């Protein structure tokens, strides 16, 4: 029997996209179980997800992406999953790449595997110029601070093994979780790798993180990352 895999799908007002995302996950051959975290949506996200065959955790109010994803890691820990995959509920992550994404984690070569849209040739949705500028800045910053060159530090398409599930269930950054989680994982000497994936443009609704090009956002993320470097590793919990 293969590893038990949970797909954590955070969703906020994604009633129009969620069913398709869930169905795509269910269509994969690895028997991945989709868990939709409805982050206090005001539309039919939960019902749509449930009808599509997902397990659903409905948060009583909006916690933001970090709090929602952490709920998924807590679920994975409590229900003894071997691997947890994060997939955005808005449909920009293509489940066809799930097998590529989890492979390094299944093989035990990495603790965390991140799907990067900038590796292996430029195909699919590459995001706007302003956002790419911001991403370039974070690549440099994260490499400087942790020694790991993340080509796509804001990608929320990732897979983690048991060690990081336990860590993230206890501690998950809430402000700018994607780049921060890489920094935290690297600080705790986790093995992080990237695999090439192709991403789509979101199908319906509006992106909640379209602010990557604003200098204000850049300054905040940079400050948050630097503050992480000052933290005692103990704050990340007993699993650190």
């Amino acid at each position: 029997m293969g590893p038990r895999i949970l797909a954590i799908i955070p969703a906020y007002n994604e009633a129009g996209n969620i069913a398709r995302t869930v169905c795509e996950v269910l269509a994969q051959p690895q028997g991945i179980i989709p868990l939709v975290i409805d982050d206090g949506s005001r539309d039919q996200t939960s019902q749509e997800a449930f009808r599509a065959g997902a397990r659903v955790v409905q948060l009583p109010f909006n916690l933001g992406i970090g709090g929602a994803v952490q709920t998924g890691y807590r679920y994975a820990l409590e229900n003894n999953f071997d691997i947890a995959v994060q997939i955005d509920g808005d449909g920009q992550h293509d489940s066809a790449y799930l097998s590529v994404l989890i492979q390094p984690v299944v093989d035990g070569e990495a603790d965390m595997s991140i799907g990067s849209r900038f590796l292996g040739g430029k195909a699919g949705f590459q995001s706007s110029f302003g956002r790419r500028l911001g991403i370039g800045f974070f690549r440099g910053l994260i490499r400087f601070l942790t020694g790991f060159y993340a080509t796509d530090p804001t990608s929320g398409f990732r897979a983690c093994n048991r060690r990081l599930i336990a860590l993230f269930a206890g501690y998950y950054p809430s402000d700018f979780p994607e780049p921060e989680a890489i920094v935290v994982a690297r600080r705790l000497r986790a093995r992080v790798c990237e695999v090439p994936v192709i991403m789509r443009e979101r199908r319906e609704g509006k992106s909640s993180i379209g602010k990557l090009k604003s200098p204000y956002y850049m300054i905040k993320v940079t400050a948050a990352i630097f503050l992480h470097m000052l933290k005692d590793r103990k704050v990340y919990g007993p699993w650190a």
Partner: protein
Amino acid sequence: MGIRVLEFLLSFSVFLFVVELVRREKLTFKYAFAWIFFSVIGVVFSLFPVIPYKISKVLGFELPSNFIFFSLLGMFVFLSLLLTVFLCQQNRRNDRMAQKIGLLEEEMRALQERMKGR
């Protein structure tokens, strides 16, 4: 002289008010302590003005009143920082609780489904 009476009345009424709030359980000791501490200092200063005069001289303030203003400002900075810490703590607990509620609901639904299946 009048200013000293005013100072005394202000800090003493703050002190009494905070004690009354604790007495009525509107404020717990944890949150009241900083206020009690500062109001007692205010009372002591107004009763023995030599103390603030001496301190302001030692610290090099031109006027004792400048020292009083400076201390008050410092107190407010400290108290608001303390409040932010408490707020942050509450926020985190709130989030944890929301997560737990969501997880428990899911667990309950799964259990109900299994019972129905039997």
